[in-house]
Structures are given as structure tokens and as C-alpha cells.
């Protein structure tokens, strides 16, 4: 119990802060912060597996998040029949051709010795393949994008419940991570960071501009929900009864019947959005707990010890007969898959997919700040980092506003400095993140909850 004391203390403070937001701002805000904290926690767990367990730098978190989001779209949206009949065959044919090209290249690389002619043949196959695929896919893509462009203009998805996308998102992200890992994991740490950062930009560029698949910057809105809709809830009897019971004391104070009804309606509207958010919180909490149990088990298993050995001394681990390359690849795939789950969860919660909103600052660097601040190598620390940093990220603007008002209290309300500072309050969050990261790295380099290695 004693050794978990700081963990418990840190989490209770965090929960207390969120509850304070609920009391002073509103429960709606508190719950939406809490939900995004949970999603951030999943992302940080993914990044922590890679960085904390194995020491791999992955600056491509944004790309994996976006792939998870894409999975949510491809799973849940109903298929657009017209688009399929217009351009489906062409797209499928190009897909088969693409697979054929990849297989052919693989076959040649495997069965022929390295030589100049092999290089030219492979290059010729790739270039020819790309040209043929473009010729075949172009009319298909144009046809698909012409089908009702204001509403669809893309192939749509499978029309399954959106929850499945959490698994598919993990598969997508893991698949991409496998490809990246195969080619890039041999690079030195900082090269790997830059390579993954740029690869994630390429992924975003593709998602943004291949409208036939993702609708691109036109966004996909109104995704299916795993939770009930507010509008339906507001007309359900059992829900209204619950709300009535909850606010019994407040309602009793109102004697006038019509006024009472109006107040109840207000409570029902508020309650419905809180109820929906609570549903999401429950779902996300289940994911976080499952992942936490799995990652904790892995950390203290022989496999976890091997990963730490590889992280701390690659050569020694190699000499002991551990396959460093294979383990690096495995952990890169696992961590990225977890990030993919988080990406799908995020789109599920928002109910919309906006490729334009994926920016490296928010989806890569912020997640890294979370891991470092929380404590890399320690799952509880990484999750706490997700909570603390996301909380500050959201609450930075109110805090900043308060500070600005405090420091410029002596100035006139129309004084140019005060106006300017109040206008720039949204950017205080960057300042806070940067200073927080620098302070933690300087004075507590292992994070708020440092990694503890127990030898049982």
C-alpha cells in the first residue's frame, strides 16, 4: 500500500481538480475534459510502451491517430451504393494491381541476387505499375467523387457499429507501423524521430487529399454513436424520471406547476448531454482499464524485463541472444496499435472526422509532453501525464485570463496592452506546456511518477 501512496495521492488530486471544474464551471465541461483525458491516456500508454519500455522514439503519433479515425469512418458509415457501382470496379482492380506489384517486387528481391539489372527491373516494375494504376483508377476516382459531391462523393464504409472500429483502427495503425518499422527502425534515435514525423505528415496528406476514400477536407460528419442521442433521451420516460429524482429537492422549491415543468425540461436537457458523456466515459474507462492491466502484466513479465534490458543496453541484450530487431518491431507495432485505438475513440466521441484538424503539435508533440511529464516507463505515470497535461491544455485559457487580469489590474480596460494580452490568452497554453516540459525535464527528469523497477 505504502509504495502506491504517491500514485493514489496524485490521482486523487487530479480527480479533485476535475470535480472542482464540475462545481465551478459546469459538469458538462468537466466530463468532456475527463473523456478527452481518458483518450489522451490511451495515446500516452501507446507512446509509453514504445519510449518507456523500449526507448524507441515515435514522432508519428499523429499519423496513427488519423488512421484510427479513418477506421471509424470506414467501419461505421453506410456504403454509398451509387459510388460503388460508378467507380468500385476500377478501384478494386487498382487495389489488386497494387498488391500484384508489391508481390512481384518482393518475389524478385527474394529470389535474385543483388545486381544492377535487378535494381533496374524492380524500378521498372514500380514505375510501370504506378502508371497503369493511375490510368485505371483515375476514371474510377472521378466517377466516385462526382456522385452527389455535397453529401457523399466517397465510397463510404461498411455500415457496422462504430465500436468495431476501435479494433480495426488498431489493426490499421499496427499495419502501418509494421511497414514503417520494417524500413526505418534501423535508424539512429533522432533520425527515427524525424523519419516518423515526416511519414506521419505523408499519411495526413494522403488522408486529406484522397477524397474518394476519406472525403478529405470536406469532412465526414454525423457518424453513428455507441451511445444514445440526446434528443431521444429527452423524450424517454425513465430518463425524465431519473432526472426528476436527482433534482427532487430543487424542483420541490418551485410551487408553480408550469414553472416547475419548465425547470424540469431544463434539467432534462442538461442531464441528457451529461448522460451521453457518462456513457462515453464508461466505454473509455473500460478500454483504459483493460489496456492498463495488459500493459502492467507485460511490464512485469519476462518479456518486459527483456524490453528494459534492450532499452538500457542493446549490445548486451543482443549478446545474450535476444533478437533486438524483432522485439523493436513488435513493440513499435503494439504501441502504434494502441494509439490507433485512441484515434478511433476520438472520432467516435466527436462523431465527425476532420482530416484538416490533425496537426503535429496537438497529436504528436503534446502526447510526448504528456509522457515525459507523467513519467516514462511507468504506466500510471503516463496516464497521469495524459490527465494533467490535457487538463492544463484546456484550463490554460481561463487561468491565463485570470493571470492577465491580475497583473494588469491597475490598467484601464481599454489600455492597448491589456486588450492585446487578453486577445492572446489562447496562446498561454503553449507557453504553459513549454515551461512545464522544460521544468520537469530539468528538475524531475523521470516525470511526476518515476519508473520504479521492482525485483520480485
Amino acid at each position, binding site marked *: 500500500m505504502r509504495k502506491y501512496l504517491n500514485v493514489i495521492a496524485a490521482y486523487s488530486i487530479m480527480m479533485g481538480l476535475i470535480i472542482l471544474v464540475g462545481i465551478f464551471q459546469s459538469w458538462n465541461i468537466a466530463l468532456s475534459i475527463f473523456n478527452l483525458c481518458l483518450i489522451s491516456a490511451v495515446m500516452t500508454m501507446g507512446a509509453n510502451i514504445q519510449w518507456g519500455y523500449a526507448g524507441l522514439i515515435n514522432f508519428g503519433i499523429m499519423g496513427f491517430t488519423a488512421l484510427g479515425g479513418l477506421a471509424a469512418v470506414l467501419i461505421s458509415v453506410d456504403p454509398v451504393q451509387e459510388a460503388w457501382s460508378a467507380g468500385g470496379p476500377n478501384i478494386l482492380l487498382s487495389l489488386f494491381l497494387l498488391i500484384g506489384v508489391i508481390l512481384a517486387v518482393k518475389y524478385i528481391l527474394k529470389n535474385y541476387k543483388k545486381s544492377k539489372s535487378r535494381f533496374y527491373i524492380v524500378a521498372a516494375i514500380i514505375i510501370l505499375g504506378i502508371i497503369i494504376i493511375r490510368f485505371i483508377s483515375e476514371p474510377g476516382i472521378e466517377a466516385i467523387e462526382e456522385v452527389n459531391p455535397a453529401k457523399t462523393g466517397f465510397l463510404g464504409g461498411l455500415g457496422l457499429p462504430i465500436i468495431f472500429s476501435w479494433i480495426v483502427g488498431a489493426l490499421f495503425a499496427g499495419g502501418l507501423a509494421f511497414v514503417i518499422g520494417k*524500413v526505418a527502425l534501423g535508424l539512429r534515435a533522432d533520425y527515427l524521430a524525424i523519419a516518423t514525423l515526416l511519414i506521419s505528415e505523408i499519411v495526413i496528406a494522403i488522408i486529406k487529399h484522397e477524397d474518394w476514400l476519406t472525403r478529405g477536407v470536406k469532412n465526414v460528419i454525423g457518424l453513428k454513436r455507441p451511445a444514445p442521442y440526446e434528443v431521444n433521451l429527452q423524450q424517454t420516460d425513465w430518463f425524465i424520471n431519473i432526472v426528476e429524482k436527482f433534482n427532487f429537492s430543487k424542483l420541490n422549491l418551485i410551487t408553480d406547476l408550469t414553472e416547475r415543468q419548465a425547470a424540469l425540461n431544463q434539467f432534462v436537457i442538461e442531464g441528457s448531454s451529461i448522460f451521453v458523456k457518462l456513457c462515453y466515459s464508461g466505454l473509455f474507462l473500460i478500454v483504459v482499464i483493460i489496456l492498463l492491466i495488459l500493459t502492467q502484466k507485460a511490464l512485469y513479465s519476462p518479456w518486459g524485463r527483456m524490453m528494459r534490458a534492450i532499452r538500457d543496453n542493446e549490445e548486451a541484450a543482443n549478446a545474450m541472444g535476444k533478437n533486438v530487431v524483432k522485439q523493436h518491431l513488435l513493440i513499435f507495432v503494439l504501441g502504434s496499435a494502441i494509439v490507433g485505438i485512441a484515434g478511433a475513440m476520438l472520432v467516435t466521441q466527436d462523431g465527425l472526422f476532420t482530416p484538416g484538424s490533425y496537426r503535429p503539435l496537438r497529436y504528436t508533440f503534446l502526447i510526448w509532453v504528456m509522457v*515525459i511529464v507523467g513519467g516514462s516507463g511507468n504506466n500510471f505515470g503516463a496516464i497521469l501525464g495524459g490527465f494533467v497535461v490535457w487538463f492544463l491544455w484546456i484550463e490554460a485559457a481561463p487561468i491565463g485570463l485570470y493571470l492577465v487580469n491580475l497583473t494588469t489590474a491597475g490598467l484601464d480596460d481599454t489600455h492597448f496592452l491589456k486588450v492585446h494580452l487578453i486577445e492572446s490568452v489562447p496562446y498561454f497554453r503553449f507557453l504553459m506546456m*513549454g515551461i512545464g516540459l*522544460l521544468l520537469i525535464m530539468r528538475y524531475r527528469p523521470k516525470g511526476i511518477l518515476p519508473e520504479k523497477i521492482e525485483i520480485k
Partner: protein
Amino acid sequence: MDFINALILLLNYIFVPALAYGSQLALGAIFVTLIYGILRFANFATGDMMAFGTMFTVLFTWYFQSVGISFGVLPTALLAIPFAIVFMIGYMLVIDKFVFKYYRVKKSPPVQLAMVSIGVMFVTQAVVRIIIGPSDRRFFDGEKFLIKAGEFKEMTGLNEGLAIKSTQVITIIVTLILVSSLFWFLNKTKTGKSMRAYSDNEDLALLSGIDPKKIVMITWIIAAILATIGGTLYGLDKSFKPFTYFNNMLPIFAAAIVGGIGNPFGAFLGGYVIAFSEILLTYAYRKFFMYVLPESMEPDGLVQLLSTDYKFAVSFSILVIVLLYRPSGIFKGKVL
């Protein structure tokens, strides 16, 4: 005649813009490479540091404009650059003293320094946005064109016009002057040589009596000059917006690595490699083929290899390919 028209077309839409854009990237890439070669970490704050320097130039330009100082046909910003550099050097040295020095003395692994530079990135970004705001700022004044498309057509009687913006010419000339003086400094002066020695082998350099504090300080000063001038030239040519500067970090990294990180000459050429490949691969060649080919063979489509949306993706793909097949870059990196 058609052939000359085709050439002018390429010159106008590919060669001149790519040369200017490449110069801007090259300055940034040399900045990255210097930090990597001497201080030994990948500086993720590059883009934002450039924005920071440019911000000072913009502020000084506005000040000069408000008191009525101008530089004739040339943009006032050129007058403001030296003042901005002074401030930028101060900023760089302060950041080094309070942030990077601690990790350098402790001999932290480069990864940790890269993480620290992310913290610096956040802070710099915030400061830039708090001081000047996130919106698009134009601070160009003076003569806009050196040669206008219409005048060129009249002068030569060709179908295709050639427009050369004065900012493009300024960019190329300033870059050439700056880069050649930098190479002269690194190769001919004693300080420059000791910097190269330090980058090559730190211990040996220390043994032969090179003062590491001086080396680090001069590196930051050069970095400040490069960042301010590179950022200002980009801002003059396009416009100043903090977010684009952050994004420019990516092609700049690509240029530095393609050229061989730690190698300034490689970084210089890498900038042009990235710029030219971005523009060459995303340009629609339809008009070019209309001039060159006989009428019967005229192409139907745009003859574009990749849509312009993939401009950034092109440079990143080049980088990834280079990283995989020649991790030391085209021109052997890691030595200044």
C-alpha cells in the same frame, strides 16, 4: 520559337521559384546542420526560431515605416534585419544559458536535448503568437517586380512572359553572399577551423586548447543570423505567418538530412534538391508539351505527376528514401 517559349515557361514557373524557395530552405537547413554538428542534437524548434527572428524584423520594419524611413526601391525589411539579428542573438544566448547549457555540461544523450528543444519550441511559439499574433502579416514594400510578364512579352515578342519578383532576386543574392561568407569563415579563419575541429572530434579539439564556450557561443550567433535572414527572406517572398514557419521545419529537416546532416555544403545543396523536386514533380506540364510537341500529339490531361496537394509529401518521400538507402546523406554528413 516554340522551343524558346517552352524554355521561358519552365524558367518562369519552375526554375526561378524553385531557386528562391530552395535558397530559403538552404539557409534553414544550414542552421539545422550547424546545431546538429556542433551542439549534437536535432533542433525541433527550428521553424519557430526562424519565426521569432522574422517577428523582430517585422516589428522593426513597421517602426521604420511609421517614422518614414525607407530603402528606396528595396524593401525596408532589409534595413531592419541587422537590428533584428541583434535581438535574435540575445534570445539564442539566453535560451542556451538557461536551457541547453545544463544538458550539454551533463553530456545528456542527444535524444534528451531533442526533447528539450520541443519545450523551447512550445515556448517560442507562444511568445511569437502573444507578441505579434497568429495571423498573416505582410511587410513587403518597395518595387514588386524586377521584370513584369507583360513588359517581357513586349520586349522579346514571345508568347510566354517571364515575371521575376524583386524578392526572388533579393533572396538569391542575399543567400549567395551569406553562404559564401559562411564557408569562407568556416574554411579560412581560425575560429571557423576550430569549429570544424570541434564538430569532428570534441575530445581532440578540447585537447588542442579550443575553448568550447566560445565555439558554442559563435555557433548560436551564426544560427541566429541564419534563422533571422532565412525567415525574413521567406516572409518577404510569401508572407509571415507563425504556423507556416512551424510547418517549414519539415522540408528544412528534409533538406538538411538529404544533404548529409552536419555538412553545411550538403545542407545548402539539399535545400535546392528539395525545392526543385517538389516543384518539378507537382508542376502540370501540359503547356510545355503543347509548345514542344507537334499539334497532333498534344496531351489531353494536365500531364502532372502528382497533384500540388502532395508538395510536402514529395520532399518527405525523398527524405525517407535517402534515409533508408544512404543514411549519411548524399554528401557524407556528420563533419562540418
